[in-house]
């Protein structure tokens, strides 16, 4: 992440955000807290965003960064949720690795398509904004719904 994103005006801050992200992730995994993973991802994304400050052109490396962030999240949650007392049989681990690989490949492909579509000169307007807003609102609603759901 640091290799990809550093070099901008806020290099020190980018390094700091990257270090914080690593620290949060490492600390969370050490105490087996899965809740640290989204914070680590958001801190890394913030560092990347800071590096893009002042650059108007769309960065094609965002596809790689997004896929890497997903891989980080997947591996972090997998590590945190694996209990040391529960021994997983090899077919369980093989299946999870297979699904992870397939997911990363799909996510990369979708990201490429999205970025290509985004770079096309098509008229954007209220409809696109409405779709984006609806997606964001739906995501927030889902978060709230899951947060209030009893286990």
């Amino acid at each position, binding site marked *: 992440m640091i290799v990809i994103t550093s070099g901008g005006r806020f290099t020190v801050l980018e390094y700091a955000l990257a270090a914080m992200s690593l620290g949060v992730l490492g600390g969370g995994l050490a105490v087996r807290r*899965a*809740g640290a*993973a*989204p914070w680590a*991802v*958001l801190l890394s*994304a913030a560092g*990347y*965003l800071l590096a*893009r400050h002042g650059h108007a052109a*769309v*960065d094609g490396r*965002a*596809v790689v*960064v*997004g*896929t890497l*962030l*997903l891989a980080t*999240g*997947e591996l972090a*949650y*997998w590590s*945190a*949720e694996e*209990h040391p*007392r*529960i*021994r*997983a*049989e090899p*077919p*369980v681990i093989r*299946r*999870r690795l297979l*699904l992870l690989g397939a*997911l*990363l490949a*799909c*996510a*990369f492909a*979708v*990201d490429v398509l*999205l*970025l290509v579509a*985004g*770079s096309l000169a098509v008229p954007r307007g209220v409809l696109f*904004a409405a779709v*984006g*807003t609806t*997606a*964001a609102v739906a*995501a*927030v609603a*889902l*978060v709230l719904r*899951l*947060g209030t*759901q009893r*286990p």
Partner: protein
Amino acid sequence: MLASPKLVGYTAISAVGLIASLVLARPELVALTAPFLVALAAGLAFARPPRLSVRVAVDDERLLEGEETTAHVIVSAASRADRLDVYFRLQGLEVVDGTNPVAVRLEAGERRDLELVARATRFGGHVLGPVYLRASDGLGFLRWEAAAVTRPHLRVYPREAVLRRVLEARDTEVFAGNTVARAKSEGIEFADLRRWSPGDPAKRINWRASARHTELQVNESHPERNSDVILFLDSFAEARHGAEGTLELAMRATATLADGYIRRRDRIGLIGFGGILRWLVPGGGIVQLYRLVDALLDTQIVLSYYWKDIDVIPPRTLPPNAHVIALSPLLDPRSVGALLDLRARGFDLTVIDVSPVPFTRRPPREPDTVAYDIWLLRRDALRHRLQRSGVAVTEWRSGESLQAGLEEVRAFRRRAHA
């Protein structure tokens, strides 16, 4: 169905990313967020609740301490389960082979028999299980949890120590046994001489004694009879440290004594006094031994809500002339009162004080040390009170030989009868 922390986390990341991309108008943020949306969509779309059935079984329902048995958890999957965590709660058993808990993967229609070889480490009646199951989808977004209702029972019998000698009862019964009775009848042990009377067989004439008398003299013998022994187990209260306590010690000693008396063809019975009054009428043979040990396994410390004012044993629960051997930590005044009542009713009573002292710790500071010393002195005074009542008492501590304690009692009874 439960949402995993991952589902909540990815949803939060997606929401923050989408809102930030709208606010900041950066297409790169969509590229960063889209993979998480793809993962959410894929995870939720392909997640299906698993359809499973579970059966639990144990190869042996009765074991001796230290023996091993195999427990089976048989899982049948009607639909695919990408990850199924299985945990079989085995209380009182130590797993020696197999993995517990374990995560497995099952295809639709697959049946798995998860075997666990377990060793019985502690005697008692154990209810095994439950078996906890947790299934999750392939990407870990959703979980389903359940517990199997089947809970097999396992009875682990104590390994008894072998006693060289047991206590002789003061009175005997009418059936043949190994105890030399005080009465005079047909037997091996010489008892007395008496004058010959019509009907005495010629083989019983003592010719040497007859030569010294003017009339024929015959030998009288003590017959060998059995006796009734009642084992009195005090379960009102116990002292415990870690996995061991006075109740376990008392139960082991009870099983050992029962085995010793059954070998002598005596009849043994059991009274479990504590909370609930339980008794087993005296009987003989190996069947009675197993019946008694089964009753021991059902004994446990219960809150004394039952028969709060009971401090005496109802008269008809004890056969007359029975030798009562009580195994008690002498902690509860109700059990002490019951023992003194038994002695007052004229029963031949022996008390084995299963000492709670090794399960306590001497306090480091005063005045706690003073209180501790007073407690020890009160226990000594209680034993003396029982001895003054004619009860043979011995203090038996964990790690000491039960045989040594019985010899101490035998010496007291010999002096008392003399």
